[in-house]
């Protein structure tokens, strides 16, 4: 087969294997943790893990849609930080205004991203790099260079710290978002258009798809979800934090890609992205437990080496599996 066809086949298979592969890796890691550490599968650990990673899951979901159009959103972390500040400032007026303000800040940044990218024709990487800086600066300005307390009265705190049906509220929110996201991707025109734009933008335009609107929509979505993550951040930690969110974008990108989504766009999966988030989130947790066993005390430095190696193993494995499938 000619290479283009093969690479297509490869890409398809990659997404499939990626989807299953990441799930298998996730299950293996859970099994490893359960066998090796006490209390690893205890409800306290599981629930706090879910509560904490819900924020990343939301950000990664938005990133997933952006990446499927062939774009990238580097601003998510800074936007989340900015939204956390905004919602913290508004939190004395109640849950709904705070939620609206935080998500609104995210949507607005997303809109700026989308407009600049779709109408200004500036590449996503550079556009969102700039808005990342700007959002970071705005967060610091709004917060006066320090964390902003949220109001501890009222419902606002419950959003991040509360439970519902015995499950952490942030995790429930994330689960709902993924359900909707999966539905939107697979069963709506928006989802299909997203993949079409990423698959071949020129073709999508000539086919009469609303390319610009799709692009604007994914960045708005990503901004909004980052904003929501920011509100949860403020609520969960009781403070708007202008300096949080550094590195979230890389975490999200890694989760999306580990989930088999193609960075050049056109192929992607929402469910596998969630597995990617949990997989990467679990590693931090396992490293903490490993330190707790006291057999070896891993310095922070070794931890980053191990995280890098782990990422390497996952992506190499994925690539090998794909090669065997298609070769």
């Amino acid at each position, binding site marked *: 087969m000619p290479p283009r066809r093969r690479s297509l086949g490869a890409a398809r298979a990659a997404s499939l294997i990626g989807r299953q592969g990441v799930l298998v890796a996730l299950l293996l890691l859970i099994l490893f943790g359960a066998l090796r550490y006490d209390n690893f599968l205890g409800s306290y650990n599981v629930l706090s893990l879910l509560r904490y990673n819900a924020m990343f899951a939301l950000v990664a979901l938005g990133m997933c849609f952006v990446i499927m159009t062939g774009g990238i959103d580097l601003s998510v972390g800074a936007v989340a930080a900015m939204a956390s500040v905004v919602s913290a400032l508004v939190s004395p007026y109640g849950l709904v205004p705070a939620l609206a303000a935080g998500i609104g800040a995210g949507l607005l940044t997303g809109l700026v991203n989308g407009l600049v990218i779709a109408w200004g024709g500036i590449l996503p990487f550079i556009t969102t790099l700039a808005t990342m800086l700007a959002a970071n600066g705005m967060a610091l300005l709004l917060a006066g260079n320090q964390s902003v307390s949220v109001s501890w009265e009222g419902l606002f705190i419950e959003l991040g710290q509360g439970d519902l049906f015995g499950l952490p509220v942030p995790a429930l929110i994330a689960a709902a978002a993924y359900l909707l996201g999966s539905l939107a991707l697979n069963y709506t025109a928006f989802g299909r258009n997203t993949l079409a734009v990423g698959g071949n933008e020129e073709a999508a335009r000539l086919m009469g798809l609303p390319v610009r609107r799709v692009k604007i929509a994914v960045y708005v979505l990503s901004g909004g979800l980052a904003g929501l993550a920011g509100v949860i951040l403020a609520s969960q930690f009781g403070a708007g934090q202008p300096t949080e969110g550094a590195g979230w974008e890389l975490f999200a990108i890694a989760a999306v890609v580990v989930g088999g989504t193609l960075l050049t766009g056109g192929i992607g999966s929402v469910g596998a992205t969630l597995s990617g988030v949990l997989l990467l989130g679990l590693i931090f947790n396992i490293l903490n437990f490993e330190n707790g066993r006291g057999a070896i005390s891993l310095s922070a430095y070794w931890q980053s080496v191990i995280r890098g190696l782990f990422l390497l193993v996952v992506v*190499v494995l994925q690539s090998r599996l794909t090669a065997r499938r298609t070769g």
Partner: protein
Amino acid sequence: MAELSLSKRSEAPARRMGRRMRDWGAPLALLALLVFNVAVTPNFLTWQTFFVNLTQVATIVIVAVGMTLVIATGGIDLSVGSLMAIAGALAPLILGGSLFGPLDPTTAVALALGVPVLVTAALGLFNGVLVTGFRIQPIIATLVLFIAGRGIAQVMTNGNLQTFSNPSFQWIGLGRISGVPVQAVLMVVIVLAMAWVLRATVYGRHVLATGGNEGAARLAGIPVARVKLAVYAISGLLSGIAGLIVISINSSADANLIGLGMELDAIAAVAVGGTLLTGGRATVIGTLLGALIIQLVRYTLLANGVPDAAALVVKAAIILLAVWLQRQGASR
């Protein structure tokens, strides 16, 4: 109808002007910044200011040149900062004799300059192998070393600050050649060499063809894999050089901090300079201008006492503006 066509008619000249904008966007932006500074910033027009800016921008430029090549092939290299840290961590270990044992001074300096750079070039090659051999997307392939690389540097030094003093080694950071800082000379040499390579050599054409359409390039007999391996290796090598410069200026190596955030600075310089981030079109001179613009923005904001937070917002606006100027008239 008639009105409509009239208004449309003016499009062609506008676009032609746009095309000129692309070629002149970066120099114009730079000029505007210079004029602004001469008017506003105190003591701007001095040699000292000139050299301060040159020395501060040198490492970004050196790294960004490698980044330009990588981006020209349609890739990206996030690991540059971590590679700088590895080079920076290795050199003092060699100088201090804890790696190869005590050495005579000349050998020590030679090894301290050579080995780290070779190591980072090899690590760059490793990135290249992941990209070509395992077909891993560049951003993820280099994310591996972005995360692990700094960890390796930290493990090597146990996270400790290594201070040293070795004038002949530190010549690359502190020395001057007839009054001009060595690192600035090095920067200019590297920029000119790479600009020439990209423009005049077969390899340069191969780099651009690979980024322009990989499938077609392969069928035209271009050794695509080898071309890519080389750009990542070059990027690694240049990162290593930048790492050595940073530690010699500071007389100390801090694995935690050398090159932190360098990837973003370098990518921004490349983009502002007019290289296409999707590959296939690249300009090394543009990258130099892009880096100078970013440096000058930073200098302007600092020298005029703009608070950090506000400076971030301004920097964002200027980057977007510069890139937008580039865009005008680029293929539509």
